[in-house]
């Protein structure tokens, strides 16, 4: 989780990732953030985020992203 928080903090230091739960729903992260984020998460966690993983539920909060990462690592 620390590694994820560090990536997120570096990407968007203006966002409160501890508490936000509608990062996509409220449009806090834009499409360019997502493209950058997917690349960084794939590299950092040695996973492959697929297009069908790109749904708001998986990216609305740091917790949801962590759950997605863990799920993909198990596969």
């Amino acid at each position, binding site marked *: 989780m620390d590694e994820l928080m560090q990536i997120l*903090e*570096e990407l*968007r*230091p*203006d966002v409160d990732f501890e508490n936000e739960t509608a990062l*996509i*729903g409220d*449009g806090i*992260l*834009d*499409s*360019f*953030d*997502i*493209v*950058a984020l*997917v690349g960084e998460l794939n590299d950092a966690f040695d996973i492959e985020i*697929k*297009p*069908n993983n*790109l*749904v*708001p539920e998986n*990216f609305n909060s740091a917790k949801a992203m962590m759950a997605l990462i863990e799920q993909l690592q198990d596969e």
Partner: protein
Amino acid sequence: MQTSVLNWLDNTASAYADKVMFTDSNSTITFAEFNKLTISVCSFLASKSNPYSPVVVMSGRHIYTSACYLGAVRAGCFYAPMDATMPVSRLNQILGVIKSDNMIVDREHLEIAKSLDFNGNVYVMEDIIDFPVDNILLDKAVSNLNETSPLYVIFTSGSTGVPKGVITSHHSLMCYIDAVSKVLDINDSDVMGNQSPLDYIAAVRDIYFPIKIGASTVIIPKNEFSMPTELFETLNKNKVTALCWSVAGVELPAKLGAFDIIKPEYLKKLCFSGSVMPCKYLKIWQEALPDVLYVNQYGPTEATASCTYYVVEEKVNDDTVLPIGKPYENYTITLLNDDSTATAEGEIGEICVSGPILALGYYGDVERTAQSFMQNPLNRNYRELIYKTGDLGKWNEQGILEFHGRKDRQIKHMGHRIELGEIEETAKQITGITDCCSLYYKDKEHLYLFYVGDATSKEIVLHFRKVLPAFMVPRKIINLDKLPTLPNGKTDMQTLKTYFK
């Protein structure tokens, strides 16, 4: 002869009265309803505004926004659209340039409007769109318009740190829409999928193809661009046939692998513009959708969104570099050398554009207008203005124009044009920065800021987010003890570029 875009709207409003004109995520509006709204907005506004004056419209991604634009036009005014999601200080800069007496804002953004440095009247959109029609005012207001009246002012990055307001006339916009609709073969059965913010130049096709031709436009919610399969589902649900998107927008679904899951099944036409298309992404589109018409468009806001177009007939490879093609109807391209002489055949020169599509200049800035829109130095016989784009080009052997980069430090990033000088001016406002240089790493599409001083990267990003739009916030921020310099004392940008990673 048609003197204003209102002639177009009057025609389509009666020919397509009950047809859906705009769709957003919640609702739809027909041509007749849309036209009625423009008349109500005009009836309200005409008694409160002077002819030929700007009306600021700050409204979200919904079906009423364009109706407010055209309502201002009916009132004999022109519109200056603003994106409420931009930082307040940016909005204040725009207001400082446009100095408008009137602003229309949707209720959702009223609080933001109230927080701005704006002394004029603020009208809430929801309160005026049902205003009773006043036919006398309506006729009188329109009588002020002629073909060269301003239609809108759209703001773009300026190297001094203050955005420039490019003024476009009815005539210029009508010439462009005529020309581009022929190339894309847009007809009344087309459904456009709008990507561009409605206040941005790239949205003019999504707004005016319905108004001129009777096509429909679906305003796609912004957050769907983060989630590409949802995006394509929306295109399919609305049977979208034509897209005029920024290159950045076209890249996204290809980059994120959306085609592995779903395709836009109804798509027939795709026009992209804003920056150089990396063909590895276009190839993915072509392989998934081989029968779609692909058009590469090039041109600046100052020449009404465009200059040239290239219909991509070949199958592209990863390393294909697309030419920018040939001039649209009513556009003339001249290549000039630095000494204002004609560029010899086969050589690289600055792309200069002339014709009825030239902007009326920069709002409230006669000086900069005169610098950028000047007499064609090759024409000594009569008045012919050209706009010097700052872009370099070359005619190839087939008479097709190729793009060869910029003369200055303007870049294209995420579909927007950015003056690197403006990034540096903004960085220098931060107390903890004593020196800096901004560069663009094109291969990775990263905006870099190299700086000297004790500011933290967090402080820097927070400052940028407060004053500039998101696409202008540096993605990579590198602290250095000092900037490398050339023997003449200027910053050594080539050495800085070796620090890209």
